[in-house]
């Protein structure tokens, strides 16, 4: 039944010269649920594929036929215009048909489960579901009940793999390599899916990871993953090659995890003054949407160290790469009479 292309077929149109060695068959997955499951080779395969797709964005005609005839559904049980738009655009550039479905989980609770919703959508014809959900594991659960390929576009505080991948791509592009770098994740680690995907990705690619923030937002247990946990930003600043400034998830706070926004900013906001204490080539990432004046000052957000806009364009390339790689693992489209 497998219509999976060989490893060589898996390469995107623009990848590899004629004299390059055949790539090992690294991509065999039907779903992208998280970076924890992925091997270093699989992560690199996505990043390399994304590099070749980023070239397409610079063409005048920004479309390739890779997903022609495929239907991609964005199933968003939580609002995120940015991520949804990025996935939609990525799918359209691969010539897929894209359909959005948004619902608040609360409106589903009148009997219909989100699994029912997904099954209904699948019955309309769907090859790939991009799923954003407030509960950890919801995409994993869905992957057991539908036959579409699932991309986790953020499941609660668990993972956001494409964000992790685009952060890795951004770091790799700016620094040439990820291995050996010291990367700090700053802020609300406890409630951040971006942090979890970043941690797995960075560790697998050989970076040193420092988690920094107030103890109520930075679980000590994370040390067991092989990260350093630090509470004082000043102490770690001089060692960092990259600082990934995470958003304070006001909507996820159960309250009382830090005394006030003002106090948080006093200790953890990236300011020009703090940037000056770091290495001269410090790279600052911030997965949007950012709270200017809370996690970082406007000058830093728009300054020369900031890679925020690169992240957005790399996000598009990474999502094209993921859609492309998974498309080889979808069931074949039924023949049309």
């Amino acid at each position, binding site marked *: 039944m497998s219509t999976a292309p060989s490893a060589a077929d898996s390469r995107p149109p623009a990848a590899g010269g004629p004299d390059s060695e055949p790539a090992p068959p690294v991509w065999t997955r039907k779903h992208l649920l998280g970076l*924890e499951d992925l091997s270093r080779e699989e992560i690199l395969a996505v990043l390399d594929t994304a590099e070749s797709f980023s070239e397409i964005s610079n063409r005048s005609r920004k479309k390739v036929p890779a997903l022609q005839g495929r239907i991609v559904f964005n199933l968003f049980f939580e609002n995120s215009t940015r991520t949804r738009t990025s996935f939609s655009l990525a799918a359209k550039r691969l010539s897929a048909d894209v359909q959005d479905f948004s619902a608040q989980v609360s409106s589903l609770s009148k009997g219909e*489960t989100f*699994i029912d919703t997904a099954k209904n959508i699948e019955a309309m014809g769907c090859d790939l579901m991009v799923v954003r959900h407030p*509960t*950890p594991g*919801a995409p994993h659960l869905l992957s057991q009940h539908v036959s579409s390929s699932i991309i986790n576009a953020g499941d609660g*505080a668990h993972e956001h793999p494409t964000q992790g991948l685009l952060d890795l791509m951004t770091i790799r592009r700016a620094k040439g390599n990820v291995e050996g770098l010291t990367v700090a994740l700053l802020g609300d680690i406890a409630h951040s899916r971006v942090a979890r995907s970043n941690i797995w990705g960075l560790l697998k690619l050989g970076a040193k990871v420092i988690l920094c923030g107030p103890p109520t937002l930075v679980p000590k*247990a994370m040390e067991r993953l092989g990260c350093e946990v630090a509470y004082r930003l000043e102490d770690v600043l001089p060692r960092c090659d990259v600082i990934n400034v995470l958003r304070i998830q006001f909507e996820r706070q*159960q309250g009382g995890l830090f005394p006030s926004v003002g106090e948080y900013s006093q200790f953890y906001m990236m300011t020009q003054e703090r940037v000056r204490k770091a290495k001269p080539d410090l790279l600052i990432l911030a997965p949007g949407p950012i709270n200017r004046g809370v996690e970082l000052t406007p000058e830093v957000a728009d300054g020369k160290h900031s890679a925020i806009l690169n992240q957005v364009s790399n996000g598009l390339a990474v999502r094209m790469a993921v859609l492309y790689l998974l498309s080889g693992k979808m069931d074949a489209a039924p023949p049309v009479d």
Partner: protein
Amino acid sequence: MPTIQITGGRIIDPSQELDQIADLWIVDGRIADGPAAAADVVVDARGLIVAPGLIDVHVHLREPGQEDDETIATGAASALAGGVTSVACMPNTLPPIDTQATAEFVVLQGRRARQANVYPVGCVSKGRKGEELAGLGQLVAGGAVAFTDDGSPVSNAGLMRRALEYSKMFDLVIMQHCQVMELTVGGVMNEGFESMRLGLGGMPAAAEDIMVARDIRLAEITGGRLHIQHISTARAVELVREGKRRGIRVTAEACPHHFSLTDDRLRTFDSNFKMNPPLRTAEDVAAVIEGLKDGAIEILCTDHAPHAREKKMRELDQAPFGIVGLETLLPITVTHLIEPGHLSWIEALRKLTINAARLINIPKGTLKPGADADVTIIDPTTTWTVDPAQFRSKSRNTPYAGWEVRGRAHTVLVDGEIRHTLGGIVREVRSGGSPA
């Protein structure tokens, strides 16, 4: 009633420190002193263990109110299939069991079902609201054998103190679901490394430990009987051990999932691993087993918590807590406590029979002559695969689906009546009597 002869079995009765191959005679629904004139029914128990009927002091039967999950009849049938002849059912039903009438309803439904014996546990507080004492005396009149607000703890220390004091007049036990709720808000699993990895809300072990410590102290100052339900943390086990050493009237129970599973199982995001108290760490599991070995924990039970499939088939934070347990209690005990050598058969059966009977003051859990003939005949060596589709419970929410396990209840008698058997060992020798 037919006279029954159970022949050639290994009789293990912890209430008499008995472990020997012998025949057991049942006359008029009671254990007989010796051979009767002639048996109407002969049960060939060679190679099998003949034990007092197992008693589960912690089950949820969902009736009244949530009959789509379980009814008293299906729950009691599930008990029998697991070798359990008596169950004490928790009062967190809709409405809760907080009056004489509701307790009597449970007793009546249990009698009608004619499966395992069903004993209601009454609420500690009116409406399980944790504000004022329920009518404990009236509940006793209605058949209640203990009190608990299980499903949630009695959070108010003043109310808990009064409950422990007041219940002394009946010498009945207050069962407590130990949890400081302020520490578990939003929690779906144990708080620790695994919850951090998964981004799931955690329930710290300390939430249990603190309540256990508080209540042991309250039992000490009141002289009341405190029973710690579904103990799950290393520190809580230590606290109970310490309390006993100081002569405080505290007992504890443990469930199979807390000595056979750890919190890393949640990596599958399968709601069949979501229970409350949650699955803990390997260290906690080791401590629970240690507590079972040294007697700090004297009771094994299930916290049988049936939920219909559509309720469990939800996102992890939406799915309800709890798993069914009656039909896997015995095999998981055999596979995880007896076979590895943590407990002998007689030690394990003590926690499943006489200790449980004494906790809830019922005249069961023994094969002494004259006792009600509740008997569980166990095949100790059979190996089988847990298949939830075969469960007698209405619900299928088990974490043990597909597990290969050892040991199974083969034939079960209640009041001298064969109410469950896998077949093949029961033989009618005289017409007239009619085995079930």
